[in-house]
């Protein structure tokens, strides 16, 4: 069996001659490059078929009149009519407001909770391993199952209300999922709970990457646990925080499953966020054009956030 690259000795032998690259060598290099590119092909095909194509279709749909009757036929171009209709119907502004609140709650709690869990579990041990295992289980739970369990727990006769009433904190059930103000926050809290394990695992990896000597030096300087966290841990996980912040914001922005299972956007339209509004428009009202316009607006907002993130990362790297 031939090992290594058999053509290499020939190329090396020519180099001392100072002749640089030859056409045959360029050809071989191009051939090798092409071979490598072929390995990328499956991923490229996947990306093109599952990401770019749907995105282009989404944009096409958002500027067309597409209903259940025309979905599988030709689509009439309608320009910005779907965007105008979305604005005029009045649901969009409320959904946007709800989305912003939802994203803030999920991002803040997701990051703070994840970091706190990572710090608490930074030392190896049986309890840490057990808790990490449970967290991976929670993270891997399908959102529909997760949401259904929480809907049950947060119901009038659920465990949470049972505990609240048993401990005398309230004499009536707390309307977690059916009060117009509580409902959005409740679903956002559950969503945060579901993302905390992932954030904790990533934060923990960053925390474990800090050399032990750094902590020893801090302790020699008289730093207590809180000062260790403030002056050693937090600066060290800052780059990770930026990445996780963007991932969490995007996660919160596209959150649909928990709302679908727990409130279906209700009461009324209290928990309609942009993704859920898009779902209602496209898959309940079967106005795919209108739903796509809402989805395009959501994508644009995420893109703006991604741009802000990219700028902040570049600034960080330059510093």
């Amino acid at each position, binding site marked *: 069996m*031939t090992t290594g690259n058999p053509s290499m000795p020939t190329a090396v032998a020519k180099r001392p001659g100072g002749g640089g690259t030859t056409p045959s060598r360029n050809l071989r290099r191009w*051939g090798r490059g092409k071979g490598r590119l072929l390995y990328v092909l499956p991923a490229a095909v996947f990306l093109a078929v599952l990401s770019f194509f749907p995105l282009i279709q989404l944009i096409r749909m958002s500027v067309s009149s597409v209903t259940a009757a025309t979905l*599988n036929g030709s689509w009439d171009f309608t320009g910005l009519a779907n965007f105008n209709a979305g604005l005029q119907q009045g649901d969009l502004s409320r959904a946007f407001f709800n989305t912003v609140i939802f994203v803030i709650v999920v991002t803040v709690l997701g990051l703070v909770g994840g970091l706190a869990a990572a710090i608490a579990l930074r030392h190896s041990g049986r309890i840490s391993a057990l808790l990490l295992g449970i967290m991976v289980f929670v993270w891997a739970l399908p959102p529909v199952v997760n949401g259904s369990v929480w809907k049950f727990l947060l119901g009038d006769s659920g465990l949470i209300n049972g505990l609240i009433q048993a401990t005398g904190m309230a004499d009536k059930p707390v309307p977690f999922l059916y009060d117009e103000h509580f409902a959005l926050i409740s679903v956002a809290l559950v969503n945060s709970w579901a993302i905390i394990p992932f954030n904790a695992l990533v934060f923990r990896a960053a925390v474990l990457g800090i050399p032990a000597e750094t902590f020893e030096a801090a302790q020699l300087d008289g730093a207590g646990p809180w000062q260790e966290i403030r002056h050693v841990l937090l600066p060290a996980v800052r780059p990770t925080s930026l990445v996780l912040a963007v991932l969490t914001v995007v996660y919160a922005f596209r959150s649909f499953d928990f709302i679908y299972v727990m409130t279906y956007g209700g009461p009324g339209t209290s928990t309609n966020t942009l993704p859920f509004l898009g779902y209602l428009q496209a898959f309940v009202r079967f106005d795919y054009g209108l739903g796509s316009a809402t989805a395009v607006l959501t994508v644009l907002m995420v893109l703006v956030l991604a741009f802000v993130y990219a700028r902040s990362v570049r600034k960080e790297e330059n510093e």
Partner: protein
Amino acid sequence: MKLRPVSALPAAGSHLLTRRKSLTAFGAAAAAAALLLSGCGAGGTSSAANSNEITVWHYFSDPNQVKVMTDYAATFEKNNPGKKVNNVYVPYDQLDSKLIASAGAKSGPDVVVYNGSDASTLALANTLAPIDDKWSSFADKGQFPETVVHQVNGKTYGIQGYVNLLGLWYNQDILDSLGIQPPKTMAELEDAMAKATAAGHQGITLSGLPQSQGEWQAYPWLSSAGFNYSSPDAASLKKGLGTAQDWVNKGYLSKEAVTWDQTVPFQKFAAGDVAFAENGNWQVGTAKSSAKFKYGVVPLPVDNGKVYLGGEAEGIGAYAKNPDLAWTYLQQTYLDKAGQLTAMQDAGSLPSRKDAAADPSVTGNELLKPFADSITSHGATYPDQAVPAKNVANVQLAVGQAWSSALGGQSTPEDAAQALVGKLTPLLQK
């Protein structure tokens, strides 16, 4: 064969290696594409190429309703040796979307059991096949009232094998303890709920989900207040929504109803501490298996209001592999007298055939009789004829959301009514 010199081998090996790499990469790409295609196809396709099998899509999860499907499959397979029925469950909220998506791929089930009110959406999306030729030559066609035949633009797309409608379930034990009779009017119902609540029970359960199920449950109370889709007015809507909100404020009805579909409120009723439940005849089986108290049913006391005559329609998929076998299945199950009585016994469904509806097992059934009485006294076509076919889903969602917002206290009845009329006016224009 000419032997090549040894010195030529490395170059050839390199070429072979590159080629091998290319083949490997191509194979990986092909495998990925195949995986992708198989993944896309798995969810959409249903009907096997096997000409001896028919696929039936339905959205039943209630054990009693699932039993109807398995009993029908057994009947068909017994009548047609060598033929097989493949029942496929698709969640209620996803059935229409999946049918539309599979029609785009020119695929789909042989038989579709769908919400009758979605007939127009599904027919316009070319997911159902017109069955006029089969229906017109069906010997028992005369047994079916026109209200259970679903036509869109003059073509027939489905027949209902039974009728479902809402009634007022009551807890006999609670009413006896309070010394009151099952209510026949709105005033009597409110009086009974007040007494039940004062005695520590809950008054009533119903669904306030902000979607079509909410609209289905809201319509009797809204129509009782004078609302109709032919000329929707804010005043009657305000009155109807106000009545429901009042029930919440007085403690007759839990605000939690806004998170309940139609299954949950009946489970709450069956638990035994609720005086009434607005629910359907399909709960007969659940009541028998779950309720540990005496119970009964009366027509919804909605005075001059209306109760939708709903139920699932059965049609043949536009891309059915075995449309003739599918029609045979429908004839031997949903459209057959014995088949309809099977559904009545399993799940309390009211037969749509005149001869089956007149069967002693139906007329002598104390739980089904009040529902049957409601058909003649308060029955209304579902969806309302005043709603244009293309806007049925829009209207149901808008009314469901208004109903939910009133029950949940998101809006005052006046604001909810004004906003709803604003939405309905353009949607109801023909």
